[in-house]
């Protein structure tokens, strides 16, 4: 007998005491919990996002669409970045203010190639205010999962208020489970040493978030 048949047979026998039940799943689970916590205006939701991002040690910047190229240029200069990874669909204007060497997000790049790049600039799919979370879904302006992982400095651009939701339930509604998703809440961190939080173990040690709008 295969492992599959053996396990499924055991499951059936183990549940022999459970009466058959045809109630639809959506009626069984009461979803009377909140869709979002608190009553906020759109502006307050964006403000909460900024606060919660900063609380987990992301560096938050705000600017208008027009100021974005010069802000990104300044952040790369302050970081003394020699090279920057660029997802294929990133808006070309965003990097118009900088002359830092651009490295394309290519399938054939090895992890070692990516490790030699200083910074990465991406967009995001959605941002969650209550938890201070950015979600990347691998879209053309975000690139492969690894490009926001290997370089030590990540600049993520969020369009406010369009890309901001209040809560986790609202974020899941907007996301496509068929895409690879990366949820980022602050930079890489560990609390494994006496529960002291230390930023940066394997992912980027610096996360800068630019709220544009």
């Amino acid at each position, binding site marked *: 007998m295969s492992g599959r048949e053996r396990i499924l047979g055991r*499951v059936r026998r183990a549940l022999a005491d459970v009466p058959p039940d045809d109630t639809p799943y959506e009626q069984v*689970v009461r979803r009377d919990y*909140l869709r979002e916590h608190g009553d906020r205006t759109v502006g307050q939701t964006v403000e909460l996002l900024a606060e919660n991002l900063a609380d987990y040690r992301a560096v938050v910047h705000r600017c208008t669409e027009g100021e974005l190229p010069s802000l990104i240029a300044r952040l790369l200069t302050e970081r003394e970045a020699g090279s920057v990874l660029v997802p294929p669909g990133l808006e070309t204007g965003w990097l118009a203010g900088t002359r830092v060497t651009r490295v394309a997000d290519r399938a054939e790049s090895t*992890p070692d190639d990516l490790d030699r790049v200083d910074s990465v600039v991406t967009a995001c799919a959605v941002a969650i205010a209550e938890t201070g979370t950015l979600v990347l879904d691998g879209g053309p302006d975000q690139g492969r*999962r690894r490009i926001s992982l290997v370089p030590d400095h990540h600049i993520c651009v969020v369009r406010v208020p369009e890309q901001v939701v209040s809560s986790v339930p609202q974020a899941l509604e907007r996301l496509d489970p068929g895409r690879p998703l990366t949820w980022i809440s602050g930079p890489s961190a560990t609390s494994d040493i006496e529960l*002291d939080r230390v930023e940066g173990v394997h*992912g980027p040690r610096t996360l800068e978030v630019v709220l544009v709008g």
Partner: protein
Amino acid sequence: MSGTFIGMPVFPPPTHPAFPKAAREAVRNPTLRGNLRHATHTIRAKRAKAVAELSDWDRLREAGRLIKDHTLRHLERHLLRLEESVTAAGGTVHWAADADEANRIVAGLVKATGESEVVKVKSMATQEIGLNEALEAEGIRAYETDLAELIVQLGKDRPSHILVPAIHRNRGEIRDIFREEMGRWGRPAPEGLTDTPAELAEAARLHLREKFLRAKVGISGANFMVAETGTLVVVESEGNGRMCLTLPETLISVVGIEKVVPTWRDLEVFLQTLPRSSTAERMNPYTSMWTGTTDEDGPSAFHLVLLDNGRTDTLADQVGRQALRCIRCSACLNVCPVYERAGGHAYGSVYPGPIGAILSPQLRGTESEIDASLPYASSLCGACYEVCPVAIDIPEVLVHLRERVVEGGVTVRQGNKVVLKPAKGHAAERAAMRAARWTFSHPGALRTGQRLASRTRRLQPRTLPGPGKAWSGTRDLPAVPAEPFRDWWQRTHGGKDGAE
């Protein structure tokens, strides 16, 4: 029903000493107690604050309970749907009835790639089945990449907490382990390494980075598997998970069958309750979700190994099956007064603390010395139930398992019904209970006995002789009152109803 007496521990055979013995050693170690006390109290206070931010916590907890219970009641349907979705998304599903089968499958998959090294993201399931040791026997070296797991692996130690496996080590001990052991596994610790957490984390980063960048095979567990979509979810903090899940060409995930949830929407409950219950954060730094394989992004081959290893036996127990709701947040460990003093190692399994005390004896059976002692590793204070985000009534299951240990009876092991004999060590307890049963059903004898006890109260010892000695070794005998309650009632109320 075919009844088979299982006299020997079945699988795996735990040779760990019983909980009281292991705990006695642990409570005499002041460093360990200090480390544990600091850690559990810190995280306990933070968790309460994080939970208080959500005014609908009780409703989220109830929804989590209902989702998990429904899933378990219809487990076959959800597992089949999961298999279909994962396969449709380009993954391959394997089924492993026990640890041996799972280890064989994983070793075979690694060998097929031609690799002899794998990187691992922390996984309770692979620890439970002893995967690292099984791979080592096949000539495959597995590198743990979670910082705490790295500390444990380099220190040739065992994890002592679900979430913070090196919680029993302080920074000085960690520095010493890094200095002495890192060089044997790869890049040595930097010269002059101090014990500041930032420097220790940096040393781990440098040491592991060379492994991540060359790894061709990654091994993980998963926090959730969505039947509807075939999506797997891993929740972590350091980015080692993302490294293992995205850089290798082949990804093998070993996941217990109870980790399935029916729908995508169900994640909205657990992604709110898990981080706040475990690390006491609004959200953990990184969560990865993948559905099969994605062209040119992440591993090109994905294998899911669905693990039973005692879970269906647990499912067969009408009281005990609720332990399978567990989402491994570890909140119950951090509030447990017994865990805080005894530490994780005393529990003799990868699942320590209150949840371990009910999960291990169900996954492995109660036949071994350690597993028969685990249902007693609790004061039944109920704090674990209060904090559990899926409302597992741990005290209820503890009492149920105590009854099984003392009385024996019918249970399920490896899919077969077996009859357990009463445990040997509890003969005195059973005799006492039999005597009590007779006495309480003979009111005259009870009255005479109580009066006699009151009159001789000054002569009675504070400890018990004979088989009762062990019990009174850690407790004082209650003082006998000067007058039995029944006599007092008769005297003050004259046998009439006090409400008059």
